[in-house]
């Protein structure tokens, strides 16, 4: 038995979603495996567009950034905050390390998610595909940091607003089942840096992740 009855809450979460999986996401695997299917975009015109932004983001990407995330929910009377670091290692490894108010780590590499919590010494691997919510988050990061606009556009309807100096990229999931949990993701930034990621649920709840590059 890996779990006792009094397993900690995040372990329970993991179990729940491994077992129930109420969102079956039909995912054409060749998309994951092969991002070179089609290169669309109008970069030739020299106009400011999503492709250019993504390529620029990848170029100026910092390996590790720190973040502060604020969660707003209809269940709550005041927002909740967490702090930590995000670390992306090309081509497909993303680490979200929460350091405050507790210590918790998600390391996503390919389809595998490693979850670790120091206080309870829990360490578990699971499949990203069982957690659509996490996948949205991961894909946004991966495709923007890896300079892969094709994958990004495959999963999201992308709209770009603003100027290269100060811009917002609004993403709407294409997948119907994902739409039921994530309405939109709004990335805002300055030049080649993402400074803010806002994720909205259909019920109006949202989380705002503010990114600071080290030294800033």
């Amino acid at each position, binding site marked *: *038995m*890996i*779990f006792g*009855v*009094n*397993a*900690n*809450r*995040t*372990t*329970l*979460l993991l*179990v*729940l*979603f*491994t*077992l*129930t*999986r*109420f*969102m*079956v996401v039909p*995912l054409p*695997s*060749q998309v*994951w*495996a092969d991002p070179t299917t089609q290169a669309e975009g109008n970069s030739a015109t020299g106009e400011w567009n999503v492709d250019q932004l993504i390529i620029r983001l990848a170029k100026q990407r910092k390996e590790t950034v720190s973040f502060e*995330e604020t*969660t707003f*929910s*209809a*269940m*709550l*009377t*005041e927002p*909740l*905050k*967490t702090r930590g670091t995000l670390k992306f290692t090309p081509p497909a490894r993303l680490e*979200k390390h929460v350091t405050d108010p*507790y210590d*918790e780590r*998600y390391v996503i590499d390919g*389809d*595998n998610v490693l979850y670790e919590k120091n206080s309870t010494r829990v360490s578990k*691997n*699971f*499949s990203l*595909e*069982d*957690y*659509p*919510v*996490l996948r949205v*988050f991961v894909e946004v990061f991966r495709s923007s940091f890896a300079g892969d606009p094709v994958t990004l556009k495959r999963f999201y309807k992308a709209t770009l607003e603003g100027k290269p100096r100060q811009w917002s990229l609004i993403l709407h999931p294409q997948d119907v089942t994902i739409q039921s*949990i*994530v309405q939109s993701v709004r990335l805002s930034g300055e030049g080649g840096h993402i400074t803010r990621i806002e994720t909205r*649920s259909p019920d109006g*709840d949202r*989380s705002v992740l503010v990114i600071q590059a080290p030294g800033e």
Partner: protein
Amino acid sequence: MCLGTWFAAARVPVHTELFDLLPEGSTTTQRLLLKQLRTGVSGRLILMGLEGADADRLAENSKRLVEWMHKSELFHYVGNGIETLTQEERDHLFRSRYLLSPGIQKDTFAPDHLRDALEQRLDDLRSPLAPMIKEFVPADPTTEFLKILTTWTPWNTPTKHRGVWFSADHQRALLVAETKAAGFDVDSQADVQQQIREAFQSMVGSNTGMRLVMTGPGVFAVEAQQTIQNEIWWLSLMAVMLVFTFLYFSYRSVTLLVLSLVPLASGIVTGILAVDFAFGFIHGITLGFGVTLLGVVDDYPIHLFSHLTRESSAVNVIQEIWSTMRLGVITTALGFSALLLAGFPGLSQLGLFAIVGLLTAAATTRWVLPFLVPVGFHPRRSVMGLAGLADRFTQARLLVPLSVLLASAVLIWSNTPLWEQDIANVSPISSDKKILDHTLRTELGAPDVRDLIVIEGATEEDVLQRSEDTMPALDRLVKQEVLTGFDIVTRYLPSRRTQAMRQAALPDQQTVQRNLRVALKGLPFRPTVFRPFVEAIGEAKTQPFLQSQTFRATTLGIKIDSLLLEHSGRWIAVVPLRGITARERLYEIVLSWEKPSISYLDLKGESNRLIMAYRNETLTLVGWGTLAIGFVLFMGLRSLSAVLRVLIPIGSAIVVVGALLHSLGERLSLFHVASFLLVVGLGLDYALFFNRRHGTESERDRTVYGLLVCSTTTILVFGVLACSQLPVLKAIGMTAALGSFTCLLFAALLADQGTHEV
């Protein structure tokens, strides 16, 4: 004869389920369990692996295969990691969470416990998984639903990739399915497996390296049957060709070849009809082995033909040799009757088949065949001086006691065990397949069920309560590392007693309201958020209890059905155990609980014990059979020394053959014992004819020639069988071939030199 054969073949149901041939168990519980294992869930599992491509493509095909399997309606259950609980089942479980959750205690909803739970829910809400978890927070802040699912998590689920089960190295996507067809329904199983293969092929196309591997009891049953059928087919073909060629060169007559088939064929047909009459069906394996055993009756026409001369008519010859032949027939039939009386269903069929076939073939040789032989027909050959040659053998008769002494020494002072202890070694499944099965089972975390705790009771509730009472002791055993895990029905279905206890532990709505207010103090939750929780507690207070019927025809229902059995008013909870190292110790521990309703069962050990019990029973019967044979011989020969002259070569031969097999690395099993009967039958024939001293020197020549032909055909047939890959056929072949040779040799060595008549 052809018509009769067709009649038998068309009318007699030939069964192919191995199930029909296996022992039934000695106690009611054992019988129930063995039946459950064969026809129940574990017998119907097919374990599958997809390999030979990168993990993404394997995962995709795993999903497509499962989709097809769901649509095919051939399966009760299909799993590849993507959960199969339907929305309806999930809703049902969620509504029943306060009766099912092991987390419900007196103080679960006390203010301080609620406070802890609420703080943890705050952490949940700011985790990356918040959008998925938050729908459960308002109605289930203490996460009872999750606790239920946690206790249900299998011991170790396989690694997942793209939501699909994989081996740890991601080389193989894993699937498991439960067929609707029983595991031992070989024809249906073969059909299902073929459909899976075809679906897989059409899915991946032909020019990919992707492979589908399957294992499980049903797959084994199909493979065993196919192997047995293939082997029997080509071995029979080989044997028949060899024997025909040999007989043709011995007698140079096609007529004789055809005639020699008449007794055998009539024996087979009446054998089939007799078994059908007594059992209602004949098993394919009985037929295969039975025909092999009946090969001995080919000796009768050979004796007849060998004694034919230009001057004698077949009718006269048969009258002359009949007294000797009759004695051989009766004693051989007595030998086979040991098979008939053994409790092992497969062997009883075989015994009946052999006895009826033997008597018919003998009768045909006596009363039908002579009239079919053309007048004046006799085989062309020169056999002069054979009798003299044989007589010279008797000078070396000391060889017999010497070899018996040596053989006894080998048997007594050998370090390796004489008897086969593990029935698995007799299985026709190749070791590659066994290894694959073990690998897939380990990877899927679905080990072969070998060890069980069995809990019995008079009613469902009775058994469930006893199971719950046993759980702490089992948990202790896990902690003491006597076992690594167990599965028990009360994880999925608590007794009414427990459900009532949990219901009573739930506070009334006012109390919950009050506790919640205290717990929420200072937390940033909106106070109205948890209204669904308060209402759910109120509903659970009066909710009807869950029973096994509640889950009929659901994934959970299948699980419960496999762990809780009912049979004519007796209820049994089956608790599969994992990772047992010291079986003796566990046995003693369970005994020390001093609860007669709870017992530990090692299924493998149990079936080995059963098989050994049958073997011992058969050995005893062989002993009685030998006594009966001795008695009949005495009645026929009316001389103790003549009886001994017949029996001593056979007894010596069996000891020597046993020692030979042993030194060749064979471990003796039930099948060797059965083959010894055949050897006794053959040996009796040889010894009787060797000691038959009728007539002239040329008459003796013909007798010896006939014996040589008989034993050579036997050695040819069984020598071919000894080349088989199947342990059972190999056992029979080696024993009979060696036995035939040794019997003939010893009969010749110990033959009476005098000229007095037998």
